[in-house]
């Protein structure tokens, strides 16, 4: 029986969020606007003097990102933390790595913690690769002697020998990410806290990172890893904690936690309503999302390939009938963003079995984080066969490193847009045609 290395007791973290109150009418007179601004100014000034947080909007709501979280981790355990968006995983890691303090509860740590919430934290674009290795290493808590000792190893791991003295702003995004991860991978803390950093780089590099992580775990160190990658969790974790809405739902074996997580994801998904149109020769019975390797997933990363699976039951469709199936992808507001039918792709399907699946492989959803409703429809020989009016479920999309730059989230500071797109920028003029 080994001793605990992390003890978490009744941990909670509260944030205050502001809203604009609903009764604030859209059309208001100049006098109202002035009055409201004056009131806001007065309130904010009072807040500053009392040292309170300034909150935009006039309704303040408490939001518990974590609540009553207790668990224990022992030496050498590799614990996966899973859960959907907003379940409090990152908040938990931030508290454990002392970036933010909890509102209630207590954490006891017997060992040095290194946290890796992002690869390439503190990389400076103007500095060269060599300089950034030292900078990033120091930020992650390595001593200079330690970095010097591992320098060659880091460079070899990243494969950037030729560009060591080039400013990293000239690096390709792949090189940048590889270098950043290489530094992080050579950390040797007693407790390592990792947040979804394996979702970057190409497959080959990911494999090397995985090997490195297992190495760390194999040396009796303790690792806490947040991941949406079920295969990864299954592969390297000895235990998993499933968080939902800031609470621990399952704390047990990887299979227990993953099983419950998938069960919950599916329970929320699938057909609920019986409101449907169509003659019913074919009916949708279920819906889920798979990744490229055929594993069911609760999430899709923006831009990553995924497969939408619509299972159906055949009530009277014959093998010679021409089947067209399609789906619309909707915003929570109900607005349709995308529409894709098999016929758009020039395909015609046919159905002969009683039970089966329509599978639609998407090269990638260029969408920001969110939950998108899926509304499928079947036509047989041009006649509507099934159309569940309330949809069949949804896809949760999460912006993991969409642009391949090593940053986990998409930067929305310039404004929000419903689609993500990749492109390359350059500066210069094109010679005018004469």
């Amino acid at each position: 029986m080994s001793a605990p290395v992390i003890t978490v007791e009744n941990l909670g973290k509260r944030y205050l969020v502001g809203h604009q109150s609903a009764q604030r009418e859209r059309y208001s007179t100049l006098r109202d606007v002035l009055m409201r601004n004056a009131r806001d100014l007065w309130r904010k000034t009072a807040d500053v003097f009392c040292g309170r947080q300034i909150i935009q909007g006039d309704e303040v709501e408490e939001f518990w990102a974590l609540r009553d979280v207790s668990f224990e981790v022992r030496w050498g355990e590799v614990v996966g933390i899973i859960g959907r968006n907003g379940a409090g995983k990152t908040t938990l890691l931030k508290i454990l790595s002392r970036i933010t303090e909890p509102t209630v509860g207590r954490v006891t740590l017997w060992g040095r913690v290194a946290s890796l919430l992002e690869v390439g934290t503190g990389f400076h674009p103007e500095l060269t690769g060599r300089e950034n290795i030292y900078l990033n290493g120091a930020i992650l808590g390595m001593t200079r002697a330690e970095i010097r000792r591992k320098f060659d190893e880091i460079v070899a791991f990243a494969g950037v020998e030729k560009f060591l003295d080039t400013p990293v702003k000239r690096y390709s995004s792949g090189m940048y990410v590889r270098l950043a991860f290489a530094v992080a991978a050579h950390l040797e803390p007693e407790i390592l806290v990792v947040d979804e950093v394996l979702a970057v780089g190409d497959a080959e590099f990911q494999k090397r990172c995985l090997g490195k992580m297992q190495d760390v775990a194999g040396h009796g160190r303790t690792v806490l890893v947040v991941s949406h990658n079920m295969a990864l969790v299954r592969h390297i974790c000895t235990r998993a904690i499933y968080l939902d809405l800031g609470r621990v739902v399952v704390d047990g074996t990887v299979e227990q936690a993953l099983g419950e997580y998938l069960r919950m994801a599916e329970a929320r998904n699938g057909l609920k309503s019986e409101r449907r149109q169509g003659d019913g020769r074919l009916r949708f019975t279920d819906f889920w999302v798979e990744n490229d390797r055929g594993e069911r997933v609760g999430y899709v990363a923006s831009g990553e390939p995924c497969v939408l699976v619509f299972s159906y039951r055949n009530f009277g469709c014959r093998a010679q009938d021409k089947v067209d199936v399609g789906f619309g992808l909707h915003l929570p507001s109900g607005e349709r963003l995308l529409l894709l039918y098999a016929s758009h792709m020039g395909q015609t399907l046919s159905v002969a079995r009683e039970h089966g699946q329509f599978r639609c492989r998407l090269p990638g959803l260029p969408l920001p984080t969110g939950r998108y409703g899926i509304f499928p429809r079947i036509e047989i020989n041009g006649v509507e066969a099934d159309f569940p009016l309330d949809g069949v479920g949804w896809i949760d999309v999460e912006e993991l490193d969409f642009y391949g730059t090593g940053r986990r989230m998409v930067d929305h500071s310039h404004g929000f847009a419903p689609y993500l797109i990749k492109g390359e920028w350059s500066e210069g003029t094109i010679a005018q045609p004469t």
Partner: protein
Amino acid sequence: MNGDSLIQDRIAPAVTTSGGPSSPGPRRAPLIIEPGRTEKNYWRDLWRYRELFQVLAWRDLSVRYKQTVIGIAWAVLRPFLTMVIFTVIFGKVANLPAPGNVPYPLLVFAGMLPWQFFATSLSEASNSLISNANLISKVYFPRLIVPAATVVVGLVDFLISAAILAAMMLWYQFAPGWGVLLLPCFILLTFFASLGPGLWITALNVKYRDFRYVIPFLIQFGLYVSPVGFSSAVVREKFGDGLFMLYSLNPMVGVIDGFRWCLLGGECAIWWPGFAASIGVTAFFLWLGIRQFRKLERTFADFI
């Protein structure tokens, strides 16, 4: 937890087989994270992170003049041109006296030296947390390192300016007295004078971005209020000791007087009561800055 025993069986071998230097080793005093808990070994932690301090300071220095044409010459040009203008305006146009036989440009430059250091350090320190927001929200380290490291940038500019002053003193054939040996103490005093308010404002800046607009204004204003372009003796003669005491509440009055005394010798005597007041205010701001910074530090990541 019913799965507990099962897990134990699985991980037990992993722990026992991991011998050597990477094994847990002797148990240390645990680190406890609790709301409102101030860390006992904060200052020791600060010492442990000294390499990060060096690296951040070095980073700020090496990117400071990247992609500029004349580079480090900016550090020479700015104080020099200001000195020329102040000499013309205060020395020639307003015809203010310089004590003893001190050439007016030297008087101005000896005041300019600590002022530039103060102004650069204060403005860099107060923006430091915001400009390092990505670090604050992703990694733990004693946050005090960030504003402290930026002061080093000011220090390097200061050393360059000091070299100009030395050249000017050669030009005017003006030899400093033994007081120059005390210069390091006054440099330290300037450092503390800028760090105190810098810490306070940078901490407030995280929560209330209003303060980023306060600093440029304060610095512009302070340049004329502090005795940079003129000798503080002028102020004392005009307003008497009582009001000069009030004037000395500006910590830069004591600092600039001290610098002039060190560099220009006996003619620029320090009026000790006023100097003591300046030191008192500096100490107060340093205490306040550190206290407020420590208090707000724990919530930086939530607000930045």
